[in-house]
């Protein structure tokens, strides 16, 4: 029978096309991009080799330092916000809403499927100060606070961005973590309650340790996503004011297509890849250690 399921021609026919497309679209370009990082130029003007100049430029470029710092800061804060907000929502679903949570889950999940560009434009108008005072500033005015030009400084623009991304994705993490919490056996919770653990103590000593695996996968997933964030930032601030909200993803895009410097763009993309890999690896290692200890 193994002859049938091990039929080489059938395997090649079924797997071949996918492997071919995947290699041509992802694997080959990845190696190719690595090659670009040793060149200067672009598709239209042609490429010339320039050794490791892009790499030394990478280390001296203050814009890279700013973008890298922004990327990390954004990833850490948004990840913390997403996972904490998602976890609180999941706890709300499981312990307080119970059966009634289906409707709320659906509603809070809304923004997850919405196009980021549309959400970005919506938030832009929601937080704007001119030409029309947006709802947020109107609210501030109503309680006696002067309007804030949220997009006028990179500090406040950053927080609008954080708020938007948490709004956009907390429903997703809530559902993901909800699935983890539902898996905790009722008997465990019941016996913990009988032992006198209630409220926060129950959550801290029983619920959190038992849902640690799904918490960790949320963390890894969220960090992986936030390091690569592009759409929401382009739509909300387009990296501004100045380049105050420019992550590596956007800096790479601008370098490549605004300044047509493919070589340096590829070098920035490589930095982004390395950062993503390193961060995921660290989180993975830390979570593995925590799990085996717990």
């Amino acid at each position, binding site marked *: *029978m*193994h002859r*049938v*399921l*091990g039929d080489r021609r*059938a*395997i090649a*026919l*079924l*797997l071949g*096309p*996918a*492997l071919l*497309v*995947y290699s041509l*679209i*992802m*694997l*080959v*370009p990845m190696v*190719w*991009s690595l090659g670009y990082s040793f060149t200067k130029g672009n598709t239209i003007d042609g490429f010339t080799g320039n050794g490791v100049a892009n790499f030394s430029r990478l280390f001296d470029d203050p814009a890279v330092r700013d973008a890298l710092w922004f990327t990390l800061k954004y990833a850490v804060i948004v990840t913390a916000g997403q996972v904490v907000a998602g976890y609180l929502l999941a706890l*709300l679903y499981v312990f*307080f*809403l119970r059966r009634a949570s289906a409707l*709320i*889950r659906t509603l809070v*999940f*809304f923004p997850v*499927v*919405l*196009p*980021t*560009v*549309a959400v970005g*434009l*919506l*938030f832009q108008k*929601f937080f704007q100060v001119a030409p*029309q*005072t947006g709802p947020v500033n*109107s609210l501030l005015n109503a309680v006696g606070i002067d309007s804030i030009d949220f997009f006028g400084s990179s500090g406040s623009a950053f927080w609008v961005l954080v708020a938007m991304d948490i709004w956009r994705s907390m429903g997703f993490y809530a*559902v*993901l973590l909800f*699935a983890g919490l539902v898996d905790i056996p009722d008997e465990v919770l019941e016996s913990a309650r009988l032992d006198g653990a209630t409220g926060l103590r129950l959550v801290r000593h029983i619920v959190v340790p038992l849902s640690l695996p799904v918490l960790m996968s949320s963390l890894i*997933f969220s960090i*992986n*996503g936030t*390091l*690569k964030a592009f759409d929401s930032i382009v*739509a909300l601030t387009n990296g501004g004011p100045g380049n105050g909200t420019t992550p590596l*993803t956007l800096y*790479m*895009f601008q370098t490549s297509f605004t300044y047509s410097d493919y070589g340096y763009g*590829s070098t*920035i*993309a490589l930095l*982004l*890849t390395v950062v993503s*890999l390193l961060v995921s690896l660290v989180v993975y290692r830390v979570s593995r250690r925590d799990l085996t200890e717990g």
Partner: protein
Amino acid sequence: MATIDTPPKTIPARTSARTPDRARRPRAGRRGSRLWVKIVVALLLVVEVYPLIWMFLTSLKSNDDYLNNSTWSLPTSWEWGNYGEAWNTGHIGLYVQNSLLAVVPALALMLLLGTAAGFALQIMVWKGRSLTLLVFLAGMMIPPQMILLPLFTVYFQTGLSGTLWPLILTYTGTGLPLTVFMMATYYRTVPRELFEAATVDGAGILRAFWTISVPLVRNALLTVGLVQFFFIWNDLLIALTFTNDQDLRTIQVGLLNFTGDFGATQYGPLFAAICINVFGTLLIYLFLNQKVMKGLTSGAVKG
């Protein structure tokens, strides 16, 4: 409970003393917590839904109305014409058409290739299949920025740049890791014996794949297809890179450039365009929300 001072009896005494106490406390606690739960739920509803209502109401305002009246107010005259203007003058109709022309073929290709590969990797028996699956999985870690420039060069040099093919091909390729992974996972629940039996009855393995396995994973196909639909439909980066021609813009790129095309002053049509985008996506989600939620969370590996 007379001998309350002897150690063995203290424990039952303690619990029995606690039981009535505990029975009362949760009820009181629940009544208190019900109020704050209601407040939290109400707040959530406002935070999730109000921006959408505000956007919808604003899409029906005239420019004067938008600029001069309170942002909270209802439209003074309901300008449904904003939608027509966005659709035709703002080219949203064209952008939706482009998006469909790129997304539908990419989805079909991705599902077909991904299902076949998932079958070959999970059901068929051969050396090196776990390594191959790992190679596919690695694709989920690659930031799309890493493949943009070489692909751009290839598409430019092969003359594909003036068409929607770059989008179709790139979406198919970047979507394959997740599709292959999810389909392989679904095939894990299908017993191999089924296909062995089918071949005993005279069907070739390829026929067994197509006529037996595909109907079996039909549900999974819908789920994966939906997840990928939302990913591709909402993509900005790839579409922005490969569509220089205004006539080829997808809905996201079109929307991003909408203010530019229209002049910054046409608020009604702009909001109408955002609404078309948001409520169109929402409609699909509302019809299939359980599938979308399940699919997105089980496919949560993609970033």
